[in-house]
C-alpha cells in the first residue's frame, strides 16, 4: 500500500484483516436472535470504536436498517463512534468515589491534558472518560488507564501517573 496516499479512511475492506475478522464474527452470530448488540461489542473490540463503514457492514449483513444500527450505537454509552486515544483514562464517578472527591480528579486531569471529558488529546495519546462504579469503592477515588487501576488518588498524584504513559 502506498502509505503517502492513504488518508486513513480505513475503508480498505478487502485487505485489512480486521474486516475479515468482522466477517467471521457476523457469521458466528448471524442466526442468533437479537444479535446486533453482541456483534457491535465484538466489532468495537476489533476496531477500537465503531466507524461508520463498520456500522454499514453490520446493518447490511444482519439485514437491518442502518437507522436501527445507528439508533443502538448512539443509545448505549459503551459504544464509541469516535476513535479513541491509545490510553483510555476513565475516572470513576460512582457514588463512593464521588463522595471522596473524584470530581477534583477530573478537573486535575482536564487541566493536565488540556482536554474535556470525552475528548482525545491531539497526539491521540489519551482519551478522558468517566465511568460508574468499577467495584473498587474500598480504594475510592479510583481511575483506570486501559487495564491498570489506580486507587486512593489525590489530584497531586495525577501528573506523575500520566507521565508513565508514553
Amino acid at each position, binding site marked *: 500500500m502506498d502509505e503517502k496516499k492513504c488518508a486513513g479512511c480505513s475503508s480498505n475492506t478487502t485487505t485489512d484483516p480486521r474486516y475479515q475478522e468482522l466477517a467471521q464474527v457476523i457469521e458466528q452470530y448471524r442466526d442468533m*436472535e*437479537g*444479535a*446486533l*448488540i*453482541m456483534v*457491535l*461489542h465484538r466489532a468495537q473490540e476489533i476496531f477500537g470504536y465503531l466507524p461508520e463503514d463498520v456500522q454499514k457492514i453490520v446493518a447490511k449483513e444482519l439485514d437491518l436498517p442502518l437507522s*436501527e444500527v445507528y*439508533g*443502538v450505537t448512539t*443509545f*448505549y*454509552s*459503551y*459504544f464509541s463512534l469516535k476513535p479513541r486515544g491509545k490510553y483510555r483514562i476513565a475516572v470513576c*464517578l*460512582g*457514588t*463512593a*468515589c*464521588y*463522595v*471522596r472527591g473524584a470530581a477534583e480528579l477530573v478537573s486535575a486531569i482536564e487541566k493536565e491534558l488540556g482536554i474535556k471529558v470525552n475528548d482525545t488529546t491531539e497526539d491521540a495519546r489519551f482519551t478522558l472518560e468517566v*465511568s*460508574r*462504579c*468499577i*467495584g*473498587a*469503592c*474500598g*480504594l*475510592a477515588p*479510583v481511575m483506570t488507564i486501559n487495564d491498570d*487501576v489506580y*486507587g486512593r488518588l489525590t489530584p497531586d498524584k495525577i501528573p506523575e501517573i500520566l507521565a508513565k504513559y508514553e
Partner: protein
Amino acid sequence: MGLIRSHVLVCAGTGCVSSGCKMMQEAMQQALERHGLSSEIKVVETGCFGFCKEGPIVMVYPEGTFYCQVKPEDVEELVSEHLLKGRIVERLLYKEPVSERAISLFNDIGFYQKQQRVALRNCGKINPESIEEYIARDGYQALAKAVTQMTPTQVIEMVSESGLRGRGGGGFPAGRKWEFARVAQGDIKYVVCNADEGDPGAFMDRSILEGDPHSVVEAMAIAGYAIGAKQGYVYVRAEYPIAVERLSIAIKQARELGLLGKNIFGSGFDFDLGIRLGAGAFVCGEETALLTSIEGHRGTPRPRPPYPAVKGLWGKPTLINNVETFANIPVIILHGPAKFKSIGTDTSPGTKVFALAGNINNTGLVEVPMGTTLREIVYDIGGGIPGGKAFKACQTGGPSGGCLPAELLDTPVDYDSLTAAGSMMGSGGLIVMDEDNCMVDVARFFLEFTQDESCGKCVPCREGTKRMLEILERITNGEGVAGDIELLEELAEVISRTSLCGLGQTAPNPVLATLKFFRDEYEAHIYEKRCPAGVCQALLSYAIVAEKCKGCGLCKKVCPVDAISGDLRQPHTIDKDKCIKCGACVAKCPFKAISR
C-alpha cells in the same frame, strides 16, 4: 503432584485485582518453587472476601490465617516464615483500628463478626472457576433434588413459603412471581437474570458472579424447571469483564457435566443458558428495558402491565430475577424454607448484601441478617467514620433511594422499615457520608446521573429531571432564589406520578429525602449563600483564622494566584478578590488554620 497440605487462597475479585493481587500471586508461586513447596501447597484464586479495603487478601489454610494488604515484596517472608516454618507473620495480620490488636482468624475480625453469609456463602471460600469445588459444597444438589424429587409446583411452594423477596430493589415476593410465570400461557418461556447492576456505587451482584457463578447457574435451572422454561439468559454489564468470563466458564463446565443441556439428571428436563452483554445504559436494569435490550434494540422501557411474567422476551412469558435473589434459591431448596425464614425479620426473611462505601473505615461487601440496624452496620462492621469526623447520613437505594440522618441510625434494614423511614432498601449500595459531604451536592450528583441516563422516551422524565437538575445547579452555584425548594417539590411530585418507568418515578427521591432531613442545608445555600459542608465551590469564602496561623508561609507558596500575603511567623491573610477557591492552601496548611 505430591500430597497437598495447605491451600493459600488469594482473592481475585475486582477490588483486590485493583490492589495488585496478580503480581503478588505470581511472586507467591515463584517463592513456593524456590522453597520447594509447590508440590505440597496449592494456590487457589477465589472471588471477593468482601474486605476490599484491606486487599490484596490472602488466607492460609488449614490454619485459617487472614493476611491483608499483601504486596509482592511481602511474599518471600510469608512463604519462608509461615508456609515453611509455621510462624505467623504478625505484621501482615489485620489490626483492629482502635485497639491496634493484630487478629489472625477471619471470624474474630469485627468486620466479619456480625455478618451471616447466605448469598455469599461460597465467595472467598472456593475457586469460582472450579465446578468441582462448588459441587463439594453441596452445589447442584438443590437442582438434583428439584428435578428428581419435586414437582414444579412444589418448588414454587417452597420459594413462596420462604418469603424470599426480590433483591434487585423492588422487594417483590419471588414465589409469587414464579407462580405468575408458571401459570402464564405459552409454549416457550424464558428465565432471565438481571446482572446489570446499575446503582453507580454498588458491586454485590458482580461479586457473586465473580466469586460463585455456579450458584446463579444452578438457581436459574431450578427456576426453568419450576416455570417450564428451557432457555435462560444472563444480562451482564459489559463493564464487568471478570464476571462475564467466570460466568462463561461456569456455563461451559455445567454443560460438559450435563448439568445444563438435555435431560438433566435423567429427569427429562432440558435447560440451557446464554449470556447477553449490556452496553452502559442504566435504564436497562429496569426489567422491560432489559428485555428490549436482549432483543437487540435500544433499551427503552415499555408500560406494564403486561408484566414480563405474562408477556416478556420476544413476547413470551419471562421470569426475571436479580443475581442475589437467585443466589439464595439453592439454599432454600436444599435446606428448606423454615431454615431460611429463621434469619431476618417476619416480612423480610433472610439476609441482604450491601456494598459498604464512602466515608467509612471498613469499606467492602457485607452480608447481614435483615433487621440489623444501620448503626450496627456503620459502627460495628464498618468501624465508624475515619478521621474522627461526624457521621452525617447513610445513602441507600442509589439514584432511586434516599439518605437517612444520624437520628435514624437505629432503623433496622428491611424493606418496610427503610421505606417507612423515608429511604428505601434498593439493591444494596450503602454509602456513608460525613460532615464534609454537602447533601445538596449529593442530591445534585444523583439527579445529574438520572438525567444523563434518562432514555428520553417519556416527557416527565426527560424534561422534568433536566429542570430539577438546573435548579439544583443554580442552588449549588449560589444563585438559588426563594421558591426553588417549593418548585423542586412540585416537579418531584409530577415526575414521580407521571413517568413511564421506575427510573423517572424514583428519580426525585434523592432530592425529596435530602429535603426532608437536611432542609436547613438547602436553606443555607439559598438564603445565606453558604455551603455548610464547604463543598460547593461558588459558595466558599476562604479565610485564615489568625489564632491558629503560625505564619509558616506554606500557603503563600502554594497559592497559584498570589492571593495570600503575610510576614513570616505573623498571621497571613487571603485577598478575597484574587482567591480562585482552588483549595490548595487548605490542603497544605499543617495547622488547619484556613476556614471556608
